[in-house]
């Protein structure tokens, strides 16, 4: 048992424990819980990064019970990249949330008034979600993935309803229904695979090389279920409302991290288990992703609400993740490593950029107490740091060098050229232009020089710092491309 093993257990245990601490109420309990989750996640990601870099893929049988009867954790470069992304974004969001709910944080564990439910329950729910996300990235078998996925879905739906409005309640309920049906489809697929092969561990299934009628049906069922949870076009209907009505730190988590959890499982299935499935399958995923890029971006341009615009942008950016599949598995060829690095890099850089944008938008809407895009006119002069964070996050999203988005799109473009799939290159370019268009649309309003409107609320400094920190990282993520790509390739296809 090496150090990495202990950290992998702590990564699930500490946030969950933190949730229990935070649930005790009181501002200090919440701060201690968040600090515990953030500190262990950060240290654990670094420790696992070091272990994976030295020893390659890590396996750890919980309680000494290995597969097929016990639960085995499996950690490769992709897992560590996702864990590190969650730790980074999660730490910043945790800091931001203590500022966002500052005036509402309960001083004691006594009952808090109805309207302050967000302040009281955001931290426990988010920490549970954090533990579940870490669990997803560490899981080495399908059933454990199901359980962690379900914990994630329940906590995420509850985060949506923290704002006590009819809109939030309905959006949260709709999200929960989609999420539960998606889990059931996933579980049915797991049952079919078990019926066929008698194993659940990802590596044993990979060795079995699933093919034929029942396993392909299982893949289809699981993919549809997970696509609904990832809001892949045309199953994205629930996302814009759900992500827009949550409190700002909740929106950041949902858009940046939660959808990546189910995407991660899609990748594990298609890349690891089925080795690309069939060419028709990956092209279908790519076409849906392409449609999401175009539809989501066009819908962004039509939005009046700032947070809905950012939420639709998530629909569009998630599309790129699925465009990765046809590039990764070209017709009759071997897996394209550029597409793999580019797709995963995009998942990471989108998480950082999108959370920066949602946090900055949260600061701006808190300041003007409105969510309409025209209402934020002039905020650039009064909240320059938040404006900068939103702008830099937007540039990272659009793929302006040296941002992480630039590296991701460049790798995807290169793989499109390498595999001779030119249409995808055109799509990537058009998507990038549309992204620039909707980011500039918001910045134009914010830059307007208007008289200070009444009721302009100052926001706590740490909110602005958290958003700006993430935005700077998203822009500078491209400068550490070599290290990040090396990590993503560890244990990946063709690596």
């Amino acid at each position, binding site marked *: 048992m090496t150090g990495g093993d202990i950290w992998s257990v702590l990564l699930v245990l500490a946030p969950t424990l933190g949730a229990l601490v935070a649930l005790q109420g009181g501002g200090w309990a919440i701060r201690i819980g968040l600090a515990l989750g953030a500190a262990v996640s950060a240290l654990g990601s670094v420790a696992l990064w070091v272990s994976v870099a030295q020893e390659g893929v890590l396996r750890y049988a919980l309680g000494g019970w290995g597969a097929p009867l016990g639960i085995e954790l499996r950690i490769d470069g992709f897992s560590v990249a996702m864990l590190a992304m969650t730790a980074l974004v999660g730490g910043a969001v945790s800091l931001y949330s203590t500022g966002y709910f500052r005036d509402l944080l309960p001083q004691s564990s006594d009952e808090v008034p109805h309207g302050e439910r967000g302040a009281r329950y955001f931290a426990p729910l988010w920490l549970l979600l954090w533990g579940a996300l870490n669990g997803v990235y560490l899981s080495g078998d399908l059933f454990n993935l199901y359980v962690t996925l*379900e914990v994630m879905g329940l906590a995420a739906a509850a985060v949506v309803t923290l704002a006590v409005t009819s809109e939030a309640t309905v959006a949260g309920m709709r999200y929960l*229904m989609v999420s539960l*049906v998606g889990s*059931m489809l996933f579980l*049915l697929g797991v049952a079919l695979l078990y019926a066929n092969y*008698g194993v659940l561990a990802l590596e044993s299934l990979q060795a079995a090389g699933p093919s034929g009628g029942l396993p392909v049906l299982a893949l289809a069922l699981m993919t549809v279920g997970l696509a609904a949870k990832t809001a892949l076009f045309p199953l994205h209907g629930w996302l814009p409302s759900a992500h827009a009505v949550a409190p700002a730190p909740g929106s950041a988590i949902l858009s940046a991290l939660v959808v990546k959890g189910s995407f991660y499982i899609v990748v594990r299935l298609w890349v690891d288990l089925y080795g690309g499935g069939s060419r028709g399958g990956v092209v279908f995923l790519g076409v849906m992703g392409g449609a999401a890029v175009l539809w989501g971006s066009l819908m962004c341009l039509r939005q009046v609400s700032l947070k809905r615009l950012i939420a639709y942008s998530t629909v569009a950016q998630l599309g790129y993740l699925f465009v990765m599949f046809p590039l990764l598995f070209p017709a009759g060829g071997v897996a394209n490593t550029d597409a793999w690095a580019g797709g995963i890099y995009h998942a990471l850089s989108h998480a950082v950029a999108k959370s920066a944008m949602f946090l900055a938008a949260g600061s701006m809407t808190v300041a003007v107490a409105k969510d309409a895009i025209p209402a934020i006119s002039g905020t650039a002069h009064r909240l320059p740091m938040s404006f900068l964070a939103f702008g830099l996050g937007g540039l990272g999203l659009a793929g302006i060098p040296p941002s992480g988005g630039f590296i991701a799109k460049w790798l995807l473009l290169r793989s499109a050229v390498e595999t001779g799939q030119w249409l995808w290159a055109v799509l990537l370019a058009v998507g990038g232009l549309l992204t620039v268009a909707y980011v500039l649309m918001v910045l134009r309003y914010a830059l307007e020089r208007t008289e200070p409107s009444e009721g302009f609320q100052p926001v706590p400094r740490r909110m602005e710092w958290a958003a700006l920190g993430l935005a700077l990282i998203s822009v500078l993520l491209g400068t550490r491309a070599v290290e990040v790509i090396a990590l993503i390739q560890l244990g990946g296809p063709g690596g």
Partner: protein
Amino acid sequence: MTALGLYTFAGAGLFALGFWAVAVRAHLVWKVFAINIMGSGVFLILLSTPARGDPAQADPVPQAMVLTGIVVAVAATAVALGMALRVVARTGRPFLPEEGDLETRE
């Protein structure tokens, strides 16, 4: 048809029935029930898998999975019913309104 085959088909039938109901029934409690029926279908299929070794002997792994699955389903049902109550409290109706419907009711 063997008894196990019967379970498998019954499970698939239950799953399809639940999926159909969750899609067409508007009442939230019906939807929650329907999701539970989908779950029961999966559990039945899991219990009918004699995949490991001797078919005369029960395989403990699916049973463990079903037990865990039931625990998860109970928790999910509790959350869903609690949120359904919240929807009734906020909108006065146990249905999910269409997008854009809400403004007219407030």
